[in-house]
């Protein structure tokens, strides 16, 4: 389970550093930085169940889980393989 009890050593310092780290970045650059941050922290946590729990909490409810069969769309389709003349 994800630890959601207060755990940050210096929460004001962290928050200030987080905002400061984004200084001077455009919004797309900030989004990109956040994405890298998520991946870095996820790797540090490592445990899949803990990460799944974090995804649920962040989403504010049950996050949609990946469908093992990836068949949400039920349109029958056929790949086309057009051959060059």
């Amino acid at each position: 389970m994800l630890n959601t009890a207060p755990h940050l050593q210096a929460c004001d310092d962290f928050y200030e550093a987080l905002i400061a780290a984004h200084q001077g970045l455009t919004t797309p650059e900030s989004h990109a930085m956040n994405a890298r941050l998520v991946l870095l922290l996820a790797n540090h946590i490592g445990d899949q169940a803990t990460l799944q729990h974090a995804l649920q909490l962040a989403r504010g409810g049950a996050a949609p889980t990946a469908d093992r069969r990836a068949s949400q769309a039920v349109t029958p389709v056929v790949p086309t393989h057009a051959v060059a003349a």
Partner: protein
Amino acid sequence: MNPRDIPAEAFHASGAEVQALDFGYVRSPDQDRATPAQHPIVVIGAGPVGLSLAIDLAQRGQRVVVLDNDHKLSIGSRAICFAKRTLEIWDRLGVGQRMVDKGVSWNLGKVFLKDEQLYEFNLLPEEGHERPAFINLQQYYAEAYLVERALQLPGIDIRWHNKVTAVESRADGALLSIDTPEGAYQIDAQWLVACDGARSHTRQMLGLESKGRIFQDRFLIADVKLAGDADFPTERWFWFDPPFHPNQSVLLHRQPDNVWRIDFQLGWDADPEEEKKPENIIPRVKALLGADAQFELDWASVYTFACLRMDQFVHDRVIFAGDSAHGVSPFGARGANSGVQDAENLAWKLDWVLQGRASPALVSTYGPEREYAADENLCNSTRATDFITPKSEVSRLFRDAALHLAREHAFARRIVNSGRLSVPATLHQSPLNTPDTDTFVSTQVPGAVLLDAPLTKQGQPTWLLRELGSDFTLVVFGPAPAWARDLPGAKVLQIGIDVIDHQALAAQRLDALPRTVYLVRPDQHVCARWRTPTEAAVRSALARATAAA
């Protein structure tokens, strides 16, 4: 020309000559019968899957009719990557060495971001396997060697120019209506296997569907034959956002005959008719190879793809195998390779049922086993496709974040997904497995394909997989108990007596101690293992593995 009169050299000729092979129509005595001819097994489709299945069945002594509406081998190189497991299966079918001799063997892949190498991976990082992780070989060569082998087997009757126009499925068989250049005839088949590809006409005739996701992206395949020596090594090279093809991906692969497969992502808006014109392909190739590169365009194709499968692969006596049953994106080489594994799974089961050694319940287990494998292949190819061609802004954001981090951080390189390349599915939860009761530390769980290992036999080198029997094999480390000789349908292979595990790799890979026993299926999957089994335990596992218990 009557296909049986084609000289052997014709199958070993150049790519152009092999592709020009034309298999003539031969009238079958079935066409002169007043009532439909009866056949135990009919296979529709003489591609890699249908031919592998027919050869396997014929080697087991079955008679097989193969119907193909065409009269040519594959047009273009198409499925070029044949995996280690496929080669091991083809070894059993007598064509593995020919494939490896002609093919380009490779184990190493490299992934680039822009003009910088992110990382490389070795798909077979250990010694002691007969076959490489992959060979690249144009599909027409693979099919030529399979056709040549099939024509050597009297049990196989391949009928080109035979188009199935109707299938009437019953609980105990299927009635086929077939069109030929000399009119229509009918066959009554006990078992019908549809290996007729992604657009399976058999599937449509039976009103069945293959469902899933289509990906809104287009790709261009260009096969180019380089003049002189190429600078690229025999490796799989994958670029994200290369300078010569910005914002898209490119895959480069070597094939035999100095032909290089280049796969360009084009995006959904690309016009396939425009993109497949040589005047538009050549500048793309030159951007990669250099303006001075001397090459000829060998084959080109613009394609889209989907990840989909049928809900069930077995419908009474009609069985689907290969692309007709499931379709994957090309990233991971899981199409033809999984189809050949389908064929191998099915062949021994049909044989045992037709010989009366097992009930039709055994053939029914093909369904859940290969549906499970298809799900694994679909899962892997869908994930790779989502990484290579992100479907949303946020998906793209994380993809780029992973690529960015991969330059410096090993963990992010593991996230980068340019295709998780085909390995055989471990059939966890198969009803044919006997669950472990003893403790093993090994990947060779019930359901896994047995790993190969180097052995010697009477002083000569051999391989573990080559020493397995065509039916079940009881692999015993040390002397086998006397009762093992009387097991029905099982060969006994004593490691240390019949064969010598001189590098101790078989024992290591199977976590074997003296008296350890593995029961291996005819398709070389482990179905049970013990430290010191009783006769009753082995007999019970055998019964279970043949759907008799």
